């Protein structure tokens, strides 16, 4: 051993004390997820977010890093969710032209989809005997994660659980969307995009963008509108339900 080189344990302690390790882990995992997604020919089953979450979860479990410790570093990525939410104003603004011609169908679909999302998940979870704490995570799950977490805090349910359900919903929507739309016979890109944006927010929107630009534009419009509407209406909805 060279005396000038610090022992590996010391490097490890240094790295795990800084946000760098969590950031490297998060971004590398996402990169692997993206590469896998591209390699698979953009197969919806190879969702990059799901792959990244799986890799990070396994990695922090393997190196015994508690979640709060990981989050301390990864919060810099997480913080940008709020910024990304604000930037949704841009696709909504661009979609406004479309909205003026299709105002009624889009708003009706948004309301119908939003209510279906909350009512069906809460009803099913209760029916199958889930704890109230778990059920609480379902209220905002179809709303984009940063808004969902804000809503969760305000209605007194766990923001983490809400985020987990929101992301799972996003992944499921991105994976299953194509099959659902084919089965119900909806073929227009704008309709498919809007529906996946309402149901599966950001992850559905990334998926929609990677399939077709028109679908992506409508998906981000849907995600933005659902975010705004959800933030305003879900707290009201919850007070009816409970």
């Amino acid at each position: 051993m060279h005396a000038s080189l610090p022992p590996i344990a010391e490097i490890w302690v240094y790295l795990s004390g800084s946000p760098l390790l969590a950031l490297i882990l998060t971004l590398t995992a996402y990169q692997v997820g993206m590469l896998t997604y591209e390699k698979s020919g953009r197969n919806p089953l190879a969702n990059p977010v799901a792959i990244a979450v799986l890799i990070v979860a396994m990695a922090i479990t393997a190196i015994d890093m508690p979640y709060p410790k990981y989050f301390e570093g990864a919060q810099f990525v997480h913080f940008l969710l709020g910024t990304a939410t604000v930037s949704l104003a841009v696709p909504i603004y661009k979609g406004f032209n479309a909205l003026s011609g299709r105002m009624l169908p889009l708003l009706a679909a948004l309301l119908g989809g939003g209510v279906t999302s909350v009512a069906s998940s809460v009803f099913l979870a209760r029916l199958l005997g889930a704890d109230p704490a778990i059920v609480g995570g379902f209220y905002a799950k179809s709303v984009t994660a940063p808004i969902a977490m804000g809503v969760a805090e305000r209605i007194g349910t766990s923001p983490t659980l809400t985020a987990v359900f929101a992301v799972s919903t996003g992944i499921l929507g991105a994976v299953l969307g194509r099959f659902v739309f084919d089965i119900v016979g909806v073929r227009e890109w704008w309709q498919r995009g809007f529906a996946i944006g309402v149901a599966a927010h950001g992850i559905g929107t990334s998926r929609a963008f990677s399939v077709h630009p028109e679908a992506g534009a409508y998906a981000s419009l849907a995600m933005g509108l659902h975010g705004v509407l959800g933030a305003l209406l879900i707290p009201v909805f919850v007070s009816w339900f409970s």
Partner: protein
Amino acid sequence: MISGLVQILLFQGLGELLSKFAVPLVPGPVIGLIGLLGYLLAKRSIGASLELVAAAFSQHLGLLFVPAAVGVVVFLPQLRAQALAVVVALVVSVLLTMAVTALILKALAGSGKDAR
């Protein structure tokens, strides 16, 4: 790139302030979104820089979800115990939501101008 980011951050900051002191029921970023949207509608154009930043965010939105979603490890024991309820509720709900939304659009747009 930078001026677009500055605009977004300013509206986010404004939104956080308003959420904290005026309308606590609405999350700050949502107020920021509404503010930026109002600004764009008033100005009737999007700067190239803002457009670039917004495009970057929407393309890689997925990355930003990762830290929160890894929180699943904390809830793993609870979720495992109620796996059936959770999985059924998640899967059925997302299927229904997509089907209902798409079918409403199809039904209401059928008579519209967009019949191809």
